[in-house]
């Protein structure tokens, strides 16, 4: 291996106003290696990488690429120096085609025409090489997230990246997709390229990286050879204390049916059937997990049950009563009937980020008489209620009047969970409860869900994290292409479920 590091960061320091996001960071990434970076939410990982990519500017410090000092003033410089980055939140133009997105910035001339053919050719080449098949004329917003990520990778590769930074790439991927990604990363490494991988998932770190660095509160606290460390050690370095990595739970004691979905069909805005004649039941005191590759209808199913999306046919019955009002399902009415819903997307749906924390802790329950005095809000009651939840869920900072945007992702998730769980619902719908949340918070959330089950609530869990489904669920339903293709045994192994998720289990089941 070449002894000059591909990337060397010396004394990088960065503040966002009062927040000291990166403190005097030193990092050296060996050429041709896969270097992992882990850390809790808000530890400063994305910031550090964005500085390397020229998206942010460091307040001080030095960047060496291939041993040469480089002033990275903008992303153009970084791209020229062979650095490519796949951002945590994709940087794609959603109504553009794949081709246009890849071309952007490297159009190869004032007119698009010439560049287009060149890009098309090069894309085919790259696709073949890495098995990254994406239709170049597909529109981004119509692609599932997994494919969108491929486009981001294609962009970086097309620009000739020698160093590829991936910021939490597997958060949106299925196990199979993640496997494919890792294979590709290995292939890149074999070609002598360098990969920097940010992730919260220790398993991934152990499986694929050569070296791993741990960040905590803006500081680089340790760098280890992967072979010489353990998950437990990394977890401890990350959060500064010991953590449990498995969910402890006893046998389920299912009671009567609480939620029953009958022949539900849901179409999306374009009239495509997303959920196709699905029926199942959830009993009190059990967690039913819906596994599936993202984009197979789980999200739509959840939203239809929650009354956010209109079902085109079928029925939803709670405690023996149909829940629609004149054919329409209304989220407000459902809440009154004891249905709580932790949505998949807390930023866009579960929270209003510019509201104070206490305001978000009544979102959806604003018509509960408990929070009202006539038409007026009972501010005292609302704040008192919020403080109780903050204490119970250890939401930090413990300030109900702080803007919700100023909480980290994990704490925001806890705000949603606290709100929904503390309603003492008969039935809880949970979507991606731990997406992008750090280990400490995951542990807490999982425990809370299990104890809720033990209190006899019915829980429907949708998650693309197969691990999560497997460790939490009492029963697992696998969704593929809008239908439920099977119900594997509770202790079925990962491979069996994975096959079903890929639609292969269907023939076996029939």
């Amino acid at each position: 291996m070449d002894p000059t590091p591909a990337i060397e960061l010396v004394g990088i320091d960065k503040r966002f106003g009062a927040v000291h996001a990166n403190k005097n960071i030193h990092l050296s990434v060996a050429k041709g290696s896969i270097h992992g970076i882990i850390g809790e939410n808000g530890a400063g990982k994305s910031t550090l990488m964005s500085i390397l990519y020229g998206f942010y500017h460091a307040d001080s410090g030095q960047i060496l690429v291939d041993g040469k000092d480089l002033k990275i003033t903008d992303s153009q410089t970084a791209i020229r120096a062979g650095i490519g980055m796949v951002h945590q939140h994709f940087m794609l133009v959603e109504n553009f085609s794949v081709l246009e997105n890849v071309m952007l910035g490297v159009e190869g001339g004032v007119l698009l025409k010439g560049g287009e053919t060149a890009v098309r050719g090069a894309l085919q080449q790259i696709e073949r090489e890495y098995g990254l098949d994406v239709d170049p004329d597909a529109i981004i917003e119509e692609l599932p997230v997994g494919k969108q990520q491929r486009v981001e990778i294609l962009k970086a590769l097309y620009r000739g990246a020698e160093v590829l930074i991936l910021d939490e790439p597997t958060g949106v991927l299925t196990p199979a997709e993640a496997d494919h990604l890792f294979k590709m990363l290995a292939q890149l490494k074999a070609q002598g390229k360098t990969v920097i991988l940010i992730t919260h998932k220790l398993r991934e770190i152990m499986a694929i990286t050569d070296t791993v660095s741990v960040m905590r509160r803006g500081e680089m606290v340790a760098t280890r050879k992967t072979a010489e460390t353990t998950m437990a050690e990394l977890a401890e370095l990350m959060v500064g204390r010991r953590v449990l990595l498995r969910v402890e739970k006893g046998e389920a004691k299912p009671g009567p049916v609480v939620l029953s979905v009958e022949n539900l069909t849901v179409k999306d805005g374009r009239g495509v059937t997303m959920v196709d004649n699905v029926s199942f039941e959830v009993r009190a005191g059990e967690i039913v997990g819906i596994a599936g590759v993202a984009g197979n209808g789980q999200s739509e199913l959840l939203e239809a049950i929650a009354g956010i999306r209109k079902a085109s046919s079928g029925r939803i019955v709670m405690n023996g009563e149909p829940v629609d009002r004149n054919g329409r399902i209304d989220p407000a009415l459902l809440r009154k009937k004891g249905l709580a819903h932790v949505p998949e997307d807390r930023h866009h749906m579960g929270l209003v980020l510019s509201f104070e924390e206490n305001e978000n802790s009544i979102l959806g329950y604003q018509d509960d008489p408990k929070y009202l005095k006539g038409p007026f809000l009972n501010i005292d009651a609302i704040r008192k209620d919020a403080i109780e939840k903050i204490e119970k869920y250890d939401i930090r900072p413990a300030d109900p009047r702080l803007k919700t945007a100023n909480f980290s992702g994990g704490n925001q998730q806890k705000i949603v969970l606290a709100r929904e769980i503390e309603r003492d619902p008969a039935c809880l719908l949970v979507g991606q409860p731990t997406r992008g949340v750090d280990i400490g918070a995951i542990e807490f959330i999982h425990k809370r869900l299990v104890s809720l089950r033990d209190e006899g609530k019915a829980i429907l869990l949708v998650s693309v994290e197969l691990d999560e489904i497997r460790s939490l669920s009492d029963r697992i339903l696998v969704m593929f292409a809008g239908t439920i293709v099977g119900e594997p045994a509770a202790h079925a192994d990962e491979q069996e479920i994975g096959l079903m998720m890929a639609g292969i289990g269907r023939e076996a089941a029939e």
Partner: protein
Amino acid sequence: MDFADLIQILAATVRLSVPLIFTALAGLYAERSGIFDIGLEGKMLFSAFSAASVATVTGSAWLGLFAGILTGVLLSLLHGFASITQRGNQIISGVAINFIASGLTILLGNAWFGQGGRTPQLPNTARFTEITLPFAADIAPIPFIGPLYSGLISGQNILVYLAFLAVPFTWWVLYRTRFGLRVRAVGENPGAVDTAGISVAWLRYRALICCGILAGFAGTYLSIAQSAGFIREMSAGKGYIALAALVFAKWKPLNVLLTCLLFGFLDAASIRLQGIIIPGFGEVPVQLIQALPYILTVILLAGFIGKAIPPKAGGVPYVKER
């Protein structure tokens, strides 16, 4: 109504839609790049003033056009400074430009020409006057084609032809050039443009310059082609109507042409249909006819087109670090 009437109405339609076309296209460049521009009205007005002033002083329509364009660009840069560099609210900035244009044109006009904000009447030599295309007179007698060619296509001023060329040109720029690709991208997701190594600010400034140039054409048309001098408040809400046309057109160049022609047609029709008597109904109140374009616009908006989805990043300043 016979064919000759129709040609006359269409000719009026063309004349009345030209400032809308220029202005709506101007707005298209700005809004496609993610900058809302409610200040189109003011840009058009101030350009009209500059064009007329310079044409008055120099006696040259072309220098007038140049001044109009320069004014449009300068106001665009002001809008850019406020909304791109200083990340101010784009709507406030636009409203401010409208106020400034409305006040300053009259103040300066009064100081320079002493006619209450008006510029002196321009002689035809300092205006863009009608151009008769070759053979117009010869073809005129031929039925159908004749009136169409000599009554509608020929006999417009140069800016009219430019307006109709500006539409396909804008389409070409937007969908066939690198600049257009980037403009469309930056209006949807400036982050994508930034991470592709392109300066968001400079790109948006360039889009605003295009906007200013077109607004300059619009103003120039008003004061030294359609009229013979500047008159206070002569833009008379056309900037807002152009904005409406732009939304109506869903921010697409060819749609812009159609919408502006439609609005121009309604306007022309309202002029021609005044005072008509509908049997069994009596005389239609003139106010109703004059409000008709607006009423129809509302009806069209409600019934025939769906949601107009603006460029996603529109109206929000690009802020990386808060």
